[in-house]
């Protein structure tokens, strides 16, 4: 990105029900932040599966310096249990956060990302939630310099993440 994006001022709830201040809790870590929902049929499961595979391939010192944060854009259906179970199926270290959609939309606007859009389901099917498909990588300094769109492959992540850690140290 031409202009780095600062980490938004966002306080949400984790899957244990504790308050989670995104800036404070991820300070000094390389943080991959993604906004999605567990009923997502396409983008979210692919991103999470890819990142889970990436995590297993990283050197322990890189892995320990990183956090993957999944912010639910569908807090009604993504209960803490559901969120924990869904993320845990990908990787036990992935963190799930939930909160009011208004607060999430404000954070998305701060990061110049499109807001949450609810598309009602047809013929009794579940609603579809529009959400940004990119993963933002915030360096240790709290600035996002890279936005990873849908389609980034595991090998690219494995190549980039150690570099991002080094860059933002």
């Amino acid at each position, binding site marked *: 990105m031409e202009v780095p994006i600062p980490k938004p001022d966002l306080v949400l709830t984790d899957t244990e029900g504790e308050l989670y201040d995104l800036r404070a809790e991820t300070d000094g870590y390389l943080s991959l932040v993604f906004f999605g929902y567990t009923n997502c049929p396409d983008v979210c499961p*692919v991103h999470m*599966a890819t990142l889970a595979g990436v995590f297993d391939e990283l050197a322990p010192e890189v892995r320990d310096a990183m956090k993957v944060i999944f912010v639910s854009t569908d807090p009604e259906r993504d209960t803490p249990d559901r969120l924990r179970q869904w993320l845990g199926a990908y990787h036990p270290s992935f963190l799930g956060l939930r909160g009011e959609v208004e607060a999430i939309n404000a954070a998305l606007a701060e990061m110049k990302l499109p807001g949450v859009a609810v598309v009602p389901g047809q013929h009794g099917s579940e609603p579809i939630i529009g959400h940004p498909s990119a993963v933002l990588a915030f360096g240790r300094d709290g600035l996002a310099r890279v936005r990873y769109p849908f389609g980034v492959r*595991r*090998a690219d992540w494995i190549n980039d993440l150690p570099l991002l850690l080094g860059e933002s140290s």
Partner: protein
Amino acid sequence: MNWWCFAQPGTAWNWQWQPLIGVWLAMLLLTWVYQRVLSRIDDSYESSRLRKSRRAAFSLAIFLLWASLDWPLGPLGASYLASVHMVQFLAVGIAAPALLLLALPTAAYEPLRRHPRLTKALSDLTHPVSAFFIFNIVMTATHWPGVVDLLMPTQLGSFVLDAAWMLGGLIFWWPLIVPVPERPGFHSLGKIAYLALNAFLIRPPFAMMIFSASPIYAIYELAPPPARDALNDQQLAGAVMKIGIAWIMFAGVLVIFRNWMLLESDRPESA
């Protein structure tokens, strides 16, 4: 409505039936051609049992082709699961070509002898050494990650891959099954060695699928569920490829060995 299955990256799988018109037309065309060939030759010299076996082989070939290319295996293999893609390869590129060649009576191949140029071309193309290289080059190329990721997202590209599998398979089996051109030097022992070599050969795509630390195909790596762990699926695909080919080749070895023994037992003993 689509005519052939193809990869649709980023599209979620659903169990809604999709017609694949091209697959049906291909099956109808193959059946029509087969019936037409049978109607033009006299195969009454073959035993009733053999004729029935040939028709059963053709039916099984059509079933394998239809089941592996039509919905749901066609779209699943084209877009979501490398392991299903490999099952399709075994059906389209290995099993069905053998069955299609076996389905024709020997009389169906006799007219080829009337065309010297064609016989010469077939003699070169289906020579065991050429067939070995052509089959393995086609197999390696059609499983090369860049080729798969380039061709699979279009219906034409996906069709080209399937057609290449089928042609490669026909060339591979031709010297073992088809009596034209005659190859008196290609003894049963040579045929068994030909199959065994292909069963045990470690091909580059297999090695990449099994030993690569990351998924090698973008379309399967970025496929939504039912795909889950692309690397596990890829390793399963490698295992399916290796074990599937080995079993089919082993079945071929058994048939050749049995025919060889029958031939030897029928031969009059020399004094």
